[in-house]
């Protein structure tokens, strides 16, 4: 995609945050005037961590992670909650400097630029500005909770090489309690199906200890029915929050991990490491 086309999308993104409708929260506030909605962001982009990481899925490593602050979910077990609940406390990103850093890391052998958060979707305006400064051959990973409106996919389609798409809960009750988003599943399923047609995709599910019947199995059955060729990444690195009100209080054990892998394989899903 040419820089001119990205600039056209940038204009659409700016329009979208004038009366913000990027995600199903539909706050309707004007972020360009500093009004704050659910995610707490204005029209600037903020990065709280950038690093090369080798713990992502193998095809992505080494991956240049760029963590943007601000999120439209409130996962009780979020491991970077302190950055996402007060996103404006993070310094504004110098986009030109970050573009230089990305080029430097690419020259040193990094395979992918990994846009994550927080949540990249609520930062789409700043992300487009950043992408407009990058070489088009750089492989971009959209590491997202997938909880956003069609406008985000419209803005990003063609710019993403690999969707690293989260699907967290398997029912509305768990999504309401754990993520503060009862309407999570319907939105995320729609976005995953749409994005699967727009680029390479890895669907990632963080296994929640004790949520096999209510979350893991329904999610995997849906994937087997709708996207049986998709690459599935089962993550076992859940860390209980302190305190935990609704979240599991235990770490995942090897038996539960193995049972999840067996279930996925038995219904024909393709697991990637």
């Amino acid at each position, binding site marked *: 995609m040419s820089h001119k086309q990205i600039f056209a999308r940038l204009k659409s993104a700016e329009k979208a945050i004038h009366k913000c409708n990027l995600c199903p929260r539909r706050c309707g506030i004007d972020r360009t005037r500093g009004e704050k909605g659910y995610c707490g962001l204005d029209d600037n982009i903020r990065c709280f961590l950038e*690093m090369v990481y*080798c*713990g992502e899925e193998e095809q992505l*490593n*080494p991956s240049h992670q760029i963590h943007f602050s601000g999120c439209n979910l409130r996962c009780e077990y979020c491991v*970077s909650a302190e950055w996402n609940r007060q996103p404006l406390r*993070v310094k504004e990103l110098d986009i030109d400097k970050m573009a230089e850093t990305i080029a430097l890391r690419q020259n040193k*052998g990094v395979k992918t630029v990994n846009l994550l958060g927080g949540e990249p979707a609520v930062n789409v305006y700043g992300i487009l500005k950043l992408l407009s400064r990058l070489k088009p051959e750089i492989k971009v990973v959209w590491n997202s909770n997938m909880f956003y409106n069609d406008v985000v996919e419209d803005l990003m389609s063609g710019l993403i090489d690999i969707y690293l798409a989260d699907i967290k809960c398997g029912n509305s009750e768990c999504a309401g309690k754990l993520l503060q988003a009862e309407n999570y599943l319907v939105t995320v399923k729609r976005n995953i199906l749409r994005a699967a047609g727009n680029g390479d995709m890895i669907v990632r599910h963080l296994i929640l200890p004790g949520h096999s019947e209510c979350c893991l199995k329904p999610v995997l059955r849906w994937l087997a029915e709708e996207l049986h060729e998709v690459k599935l990444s089962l993550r076992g690195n859940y*860390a209980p929050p302190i305190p935990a009100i609704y979240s599991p209080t235990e770490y995942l054990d090897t038996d539960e991990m193995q049972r999840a892998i067996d279930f996925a394989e038995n219904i024909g899903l393709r697991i990637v490491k």
Partner: protein
Amino acid sequence: MKNKPYKQQQGDFEIRILKNGRVVMITPDDALMEVAQRIAPENPVVLYQMETKDNARKSAE
């Protein structure tokens, strides 16, 4: 044990040592990855990270 998280402020590190001896690092950054290299050099992620750093160093030279 206090029922409050250690990692409360932006920029705090959080390392948990579990009863079974497992060490968990929450949202590791470069500094925590260096700690991981010291205490678990055989960990596959750490090994790959070290290998990548070596390659980067060589290509920069």
